[in-house]
């Protein structure tokens, strides 16, 4: 019973709401001796593991900390360049913390607006006349369930592949949206939803499902 997150995309394809519910944290800390046997590379503002998978450090993971000092971009927070520290033999043994790259808000907005044309393409690809867009998108680690309202707002839930009853949850989120977002006179349509009551209620519903299942929704 795991739900990873909820997304709402407006009529025009912008992300207006996102809530990460249950993102598994994966972090590994390890002490290395010289020379470093993990191949690192700097790309799009992150230092990523390019090759040399070992002890839970996987290809694609990002360097978070060096000796407990957080890394931003390629710089340590004390101003030193991370690569210079790693390449200098005198600094060893060195404690490095790796983890999964976190999605930034910008990346989420980008992905949400990418889903929008995908949805439209799906309905046009259909061999049968009249088809809806994507309702379920399945991968090996998650299932994305999407529900489009008559007014064109899309509600999406990302959950475990085995999670049942997500259509009921989507309808429930739609009700909450109608109640707590649209009845708030200070919320203007098509804008990101910043209504605390809505956040709280979405959270309550998700926790309810995880505790006692979908049956008594």
């Amino acid at each position, binding site marked *: 019973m795991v739900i990873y997150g909820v997304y709402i995309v407006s*009529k025009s394809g912008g992300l207006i709401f996102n809530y990460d519910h249950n993102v598994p944290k994966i972090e590994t800390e390890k002490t290395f001796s010289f020379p470093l046997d993990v191949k690192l590379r700097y790309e799009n503002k992150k230092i990523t593991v390019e090759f040399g998978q070992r002890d839970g450090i996987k290809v694609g993971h990002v360097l978070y900390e060096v000796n407990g000092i957080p890394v931003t971009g390629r710089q340590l927070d004390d101003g030193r360049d991370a690569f210079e520290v790693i390449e200098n033999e005198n600094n060893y043994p060195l404690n490095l913390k790796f983890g999964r790259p976190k999605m930034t808000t910008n990346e989420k907005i980008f992905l949400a607006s990418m889903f*929008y044309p995908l*949805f*439209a393409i*799906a*309905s046009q690809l259909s061999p049968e006349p009249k*088809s*809806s*867009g994507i309702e379920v998108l399945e991968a090996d680690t998650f299932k994305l369930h999407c529900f*489009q*309202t*008559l*007014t*064109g*707002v899309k509600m999406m839930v990302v959950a475990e592949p085995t999670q049942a009853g997500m259509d009921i949850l989507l*309808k429930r989120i*739609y*009700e909450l*949206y*109608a*109640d707590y977002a*649209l*009845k708030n006179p200070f919320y203007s*349509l098509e804008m990101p939803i910043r209504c605390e009551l809505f956040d709280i209620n979405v959270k309550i519903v998700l926790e309810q499902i995880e505790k006692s299942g979908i049956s008594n929704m």
Partner: protein
Amino acid sequence: MSRASARFDTKKVNSELVTLTYGALVAQMVKDLDSTEDVNKQLERIGYNMGIRIVEDYLAKTGTGRCLDLKDTADKIQSAFRMYLGVQPNVVNWSPGGDEFSFLLDSNPLTDLVELPEDLKNLKYCNIICGVIRGALEMVQLDVQCWIIQDILKGDANTEIRVKFIRKLEDAIPAGEE
């Protein structure tokens, strides 16, 4: 469904509270604006802004699908009247082309306890309802015109609201439904 309807407590309020609140709003607008024509226009605009939000509430709570003809639309608005105003209007006076019809309200919570003074004879007191209908239908890609033909407040036997279908907003229909 019965369990579902128990969950969102459709809070029943005394209709007089609605009557008085709406009355206060209209009275204030008559005071603030110079011409009754402006009041009519503003009431319609307020209604429109309510309509584009209330339609989501209606869809979420009833779970109805898209309507395929105007008869269907009329039935759904009729049930919305029952949900939000607690009155059941009759759908009458269909045009031969089937693109116009009227709602006949023999009672209307907005106009209970109200009498129009002589100098406000051209005030469309219930114009907010026209705005709500127009806004709500626009959100489900139907362009309609909506106006008041008869008004209890002006000595008619009942209130008649006319709805005319203009066109379907084809370019606004969400993907996957064309």
